[in-house]
């Protein structure tokens, strides 16, 4: 790569299921100011701002119109990626790699409570073949879970274990919405939303903002003593119609991870990666994601969680933050994963720190049933 780029700072709002007392603009500038303050820089040090948000979620078309100022983008080079924030991060990485900018800020946000997840996700369907079935992320996800579990004999209990693990991790994350541990029994007895997905295996509606600051080498080293270098990135879009994909395999994610691994020189992900933060809106997804990332073979996600490798203290802890199951601010979820992964390699993840983490993976996703995926590899060196 022509120049080295690092994450030098980040901020997350304390995610909540409903922040009715805060205007979304306030949420944004508070997080932006915190990110700048924690990094020890001013808005004048930022060359370009890239945001990730969604018109239909905000109920404000061209969603960056009224928050350009709150993002500190007034008279700056600015653009918006209308995907999960991880895609905005990948594009920002490219903007910096090009040499056109030395510093950048990525801002991703949503207030899921001001609308309803059904509309944000359900309206992603086409008008002719999917819309008449009133599908959304839950029902497409449930269909995917069913196909996946049947194909490989993954059990409901194995999926539930993901929720137990992530909720336990989330209890130590001050930014998480859900901070209470749950037992396997509680998960298995929680009501079914759409079979096989149960209430405690689904994400909470979340309001919040995530901000990440990136810089090119020279500036990065001045801004922080612990930069998280971006050593690889990849993003791939799979087919649109769920039936036109093999729902049990995340082919696109496998390819995106392959691209990121190639750039980062990772041949054995389980051995070379110390920690992963992934975007699992529903518990079963973490197992599928782990498979596509090559942490285990196809269909072995259930065994992976049974073996405890992805727990804190395991060979490769997945979602020390609690993941999307503990806080899922649409558009920001993947950027939160990147921020958390950066904190891990910078050694600043507090109670959720994986000791000695040198290489971290972050995953973000957009679309129904994990249709489009982005992978970013961060490294201490």
């Amino acid at each position, binding site marked *: 790569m022509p120049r080295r780029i690092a994450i030098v700072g980040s901020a997350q709002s304390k995610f909540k299921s409903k922040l009715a007392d805060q205007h979304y603009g306030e949420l944004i500038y508070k997080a932006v100011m915190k990110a700048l303050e924690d990094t020890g820089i001013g808005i004048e040090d930022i060359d370009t701002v890239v945001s990730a948000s969604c018109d239909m979620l905000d*109920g404000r078309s061209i969603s960056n119109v009224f928050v350009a100022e709150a993002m500190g983008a007034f008279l700056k080079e600015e653009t918006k990626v209308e995907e999960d924030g991880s895609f905005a991060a990948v594009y920002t990485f490219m903007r910096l790699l090009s040499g056109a900018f030395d510093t950048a800020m990525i801002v991703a946000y949503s207030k899921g409570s001001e609308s309803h997840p059904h509309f944000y996700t359900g309206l992603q369907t086409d008008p*002719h073949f999917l819309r008449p079935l009133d599908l959304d992320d839950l029902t497409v996800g449930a269909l995917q879970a069913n196909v996946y579990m049947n194909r490989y004999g993954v059990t409901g209990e194995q999926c539930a274990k993901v929720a137990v693990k992530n909720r336990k991790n989330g209890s130590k994350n001050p930014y998480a919405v859900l901070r209470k541990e749950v037992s396997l029994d509680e998960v298995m007895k929680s009501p079914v939303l759409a079979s096989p997905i149960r209430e405690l295996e689904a994400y909470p509606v979340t309001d919040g903002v995530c901000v990440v600051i990136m810089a090119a080498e020279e500036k990065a080293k001045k801004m922080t003593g612990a930069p998280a270098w971006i050593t690889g990135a990849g993003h791939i879009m799979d087919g649109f119609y*769920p039936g036109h994909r093999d729902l049990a395999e995340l082919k696109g994610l496998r390819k995106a991870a392959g691209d990121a691994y190639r750039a980062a020189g990772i041949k054995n992900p389980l051995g070379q990666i110390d920690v992963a933060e992934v975007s699992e809106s529903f518990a079963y997804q973490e197992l599928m994601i782990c498979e596509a990332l090559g942490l285990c073979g196809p269909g072995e996600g259930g065994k992976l969680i049974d073996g405890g490798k992805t727990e804190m203290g395991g060979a490769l802890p997945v979602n020390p933050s609690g993941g999307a199951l503990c806080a899922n601010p649409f558009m920001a979820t993947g950027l939160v994963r990147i921020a958390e992964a950066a904190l891990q390699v910078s050694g600043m993840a507090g109670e959720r720190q994986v000791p000695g983490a040198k290489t971290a993976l972050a995953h973000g996703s957009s679309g129904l049933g994990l249709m489009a995926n982005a992978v970013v590899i961060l490294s201490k060196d």
Partner: protein
Amino acid sequence: MPDEPMVLKGNITAPYNWTTGQAAGRFLTEFKENRRIIGAKCADCGVVFVPPQEFCRTCLKMMEFVPVSDAGTLTGFTVVETKPPDNPFSLGDPPYVIAAVRLEGADTDFIHLIRKGVAPSSLKPGMRVRAVWKEERKGNLLDIEGFEPAPEAAAVISDQPILEPKIREVKGKVSVPYNWAYGENITKFFKETRDNKRIMGTRCSKCRKVLVPPVALCGRCFAMTEEKWVELPDTATLVAHTVVYLPFPGQPQEPPYAYGMLRFDGADTQFPHLIGGIEFDKIKCGMRLKAVWNEERKGDLFDIKYFEPLRE
């Protein structure tokens, strides 16, 4: 004591006329007229996609439309137990079953429903299922009521020629409710307009300019406004205006009407509002205006009915 938060409840409702094109157009026409399911096949890779696409996603070449059977095997399913919020596409009360079916002749799965009345416990992946067609069909995906188990169902693929797309567009509607939070500052602003007919602004801590609406951040300086509020009169100067004549479905005001950007006396930002009490052709940039307050005020922009010329 911080003011209790206020929220603007609203929704965006919009009508659509979705074009069906060559693929969905043929598919829906065949549904309605021939109770037949069609797919599309790429001449290069030979894969049959159901529902059909116009072009191959791998080589982007146009595909050929081919009929497939309305029977096949069940790939997977979900029993939906929670009702999505009301919307124009609601399927009614759960439980209902969404299924993926591999139709005979197709290389992909077709997503549809299991017919109401079939016990979910009787469903097994890999079992044979068949479409149950409605007697009265409208050229919609739901012309099939759903699929049902049919162990003996034969794979009949009629080879009569595929009809041209007679269904060219499909009408529909999107309706999304929103709760836009005012936040602390705007809540205070609207409590003041509602309770005291008072205009309140904020002052930037850096450039010292006054902002109405009273946001907490001066975007130009990227600096917070001061905690102390500024009270302004309800008089203003018109900066620029328009008279709207163009009507469109779903318009919140009925044209013609006049509105403009005005600057409250003492403020350094513009504020949008209606202009009334004057003939349209007498409205001029720079004219002096005064708020006409509504008798009934709810804490929103229409606490002020409109602005009329100030008689000084």
